[in-house]
């Protein structure tokens, strides 16, 4: 059931959304299907992801393909996980909200080697942390907007963003790289 419909979009947004669907949906479907192991559920995840995207069309630059492809994969994987959670009838964990949010070291390096290692860490990072960080840092979403997209509590998202940064810093430190 689509609660959000095209009525809220202007013609340009509809056109952009359609273009995005045509270009990215097959990979999104693959990503969702890997999590759900069901074509039908994967379609639902893709559908929900585009509903989520449609709500934020105003803040999305569809021509920034690098940012967009990561964003869409993050969103669809989150939707797929959500479907999986519903299938298992479990509720999202919210206990993280009690963890203090304090880590906010800035990552910046001129060394390609450090950058590449950081990318490697990030590709291996659990989506539960990477997705909110991506939405926050790349897409410029506030924790509240991020929470809305990912269907989590804002406080949880704040902690997850902080933890993601912390994990990156710790892994870099373990490898002998200092920021």
């Amino acid at each position, binding site marked *: 059931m689509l609660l959000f*419909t095209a009525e809220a979009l202007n013609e340009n947004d509809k056109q952009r959304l359609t273009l995005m669907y045509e270009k990215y949906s097959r990979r999104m479907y693959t990503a969702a*299907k890997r999590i759900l192991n069901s074509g039908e559920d994967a379609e639902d995840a893709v559908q929900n992801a585009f509903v989520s995207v449609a709500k934020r069309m105003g803040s999305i630059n569809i021509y920034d393909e*690098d940012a967009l492809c990561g964003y869409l994969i993050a969103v669809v994987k989150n939707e797929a996980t959500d479907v999986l959670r519903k299938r298992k009838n479990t509720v999202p964990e919210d206990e993280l909200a009690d963890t203090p949010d304090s880590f906010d070291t800035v990552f*910046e390096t001129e*060394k390609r080697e450090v950058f590449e290692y950081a*990318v490697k860490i*990030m590709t291996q990072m659990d989506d539960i942390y990477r997705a909110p960080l*991506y939405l926050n840092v790349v897409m410029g979403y506030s924790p509240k907007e991020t929470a809305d997209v990912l269907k989590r509590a804002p406080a949880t998202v704040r902690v997850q963003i902080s933890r993601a940064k912390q994990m*990156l810093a710790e892994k870099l430190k373990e490898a002998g790289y200092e920021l």
Partner: protein
Amino acid sequence: MSYKYTLKDVLLEAGVKEYYSIPEDKNWQRSEKHTKAMNKLFDKQLPLYKRIGSSPLYKGITIAAAAALIFGAAMAIKPIREPVTAFLGSIFGKTEITDTDEITYITEPDETDPAVITDTEKTEPAVITDTETTEPEETEDHTETEQSETEPDFDGWDKLDTQGRVERAVYEITHYGINYQRFRYLCGDEHADDIYDDGGYYLGDESADNFTYGYFLDLYDTEADPLRKQLMFVYISSFLVDTWNDDTRTVPYTTKYYPCFDRFKADSLPRLDLSYNEECDKWIHEHYYNAFCNYARYMTEEDVKTKYLPSYKLIKKYGFDDFLTSKRTQKANFVINEFFNMALSVKYGIAVSDPSSNIYCRFDEGDGYARIYEPGDAVYTALLKYYTKDELDHSDSAPVVYEQREGIKTIDEWKEYFKSLTAKSIADDFVKENRCFLVLEDGRVLTSDQYRFFNTNNLQTPFFGELSDSVVSDDNGAITAIVFINDVDQERDYTVELKEEKGELKITGGTLVTEWLNRTLSSEECEIRDSIIDAEKLFHLMRFGLVSDFRYYGCDTAYSIEYNNNPSLPEGLEEKLDQTALREEDGEKYYMTGTVRRFSYGLSTYDNFIRYFSKILPEDTVKNYIKENKYFLIADGDVYLLDMTDQIEPRLLIDYGSMKITKEEDGLITASAMIGDAWDPEREVTFELVKTDDGYRIVGGTFISEYLTTI
């Protein structure tokens, strides 16, 4: 100034890497439910004919009502009405309009009367009055006697001439939309909203043969009411025009022809131009015949004759004889296709499945590895029969593994199905465990596409020729077919013999079985080809700026900078771009339109790039070839590429199907192949190769001397 990588860069790169590591699911057949939901989200405004309801009830109501409306509108115009009634009467003699039929027409409006459509339309759409032109004798002169059903006898082109103006009007109405409120009233359908909201999106995505060719004609054929039948004919005609226009954009039209009820105004009628548009009319007539031929190509002659006799008469009259082959032939083609695909999975590891079902994958990060999914003990153990642990975890040869599709997931299911397609003796002999076709202890069948046919998308992908002409004889006892296969190392025709056993067609022999099925690939030849393919990629990169060849290659994942939008290029790069990709006119700078990309890992530095290609080519050749190349930029020791893929010029391709490989006594290997544009490889190139620890290295030949020279 050096470039500072930020957390955003890290996340972007990780996102891009992940995105390109996920294969596109090209086999995804979007479900009706999903398509409907997405269309709703996108709010696609489909043409009228695609918005009609999907259920039989809605379809019937919609078609009939739309046709009534359209026909009524057209019939309000006397110059149109006369020839149309004549035409309908002449073509469909059985449904001729007689003076006893209660046919009346929409009131042709008085120029002074703004009330164009009366309330009566809302309740009685098919009974509309015309004070001027209800002349029953109009049709009498055009009634023809019934034609023989056994001998095609169509004589209607002169009558078809009358169709141009009608179809024009109908086309315009359908093309520009129709007032749905009016439509709902006319239908008297309480579900009209549903037609729009829910039903309307189904049909647009149905395949053309079901929707266009099958449904409408079938509806027409089964309609008992003569008036409705005639109205449907007009509607079908309009649909054809719309379809043609979608395909070719060549239908001439003008809005001067009464286009749209939404814009209907009484005072617009006098301005309607009903003059005969010869160009449009001629076009429609030409394609009318072709359109029916297109229907017939999807049906057997027997079906066309039985179900659509008028159309059958028309196309036979003009010599059409390209009907779909019989069901038996269709079945034969299906069996051959299934047989071929299943054989591919054993021979080359191309799964009969959804490519998204890969469960173990590694992609090259230079010094590491990444698994999309942990393989699990069973898969890992099976793979270890053919790969070392080091290969699986750390090397380029780690495989992508695919599951088979539903129904043939286990070896028992697989064998059972394969035996249903071919003789038992052939099936028993064929299935063997190998590096491509893995059978786990629990019976699951996996395929390991070690050549990455689908991923690389290069010319090595085995290709099965068109099936439509494959069956060459059918004497009801045995079918013989000829199929064309563009195999990895050769291309040729193979024969296929099929016989019926217990009501099922099965492949029993032919060269497809005796010469292709158990033919194995020489890994040596594949390695030689791999080297040549790499050399060709380098050639394409330097000659045309074609970076896309590398994007399937595992060693890339380009880091991109939209050049025009990002002035903060790494130090030195802008200067390089100025030297190679810049032209100045009247003091203005113009850069080539492309994207600057950067290899991420194995090829990211100049030294790595040279090292990589020096494995397959002489180092001096590589260095000289990339020197001062406008697409190949080096800044601070790193390699950047000006990607011109989107602006690609016609490129030269090696025709791998024509490749011949010979071995000399001194260990030198010579390969030759044709090279040229994609459709016309016209020149021959040669490659001289030697075996090395890393595979095969090209050390001479005309490809190096004539193509890999400094540009």
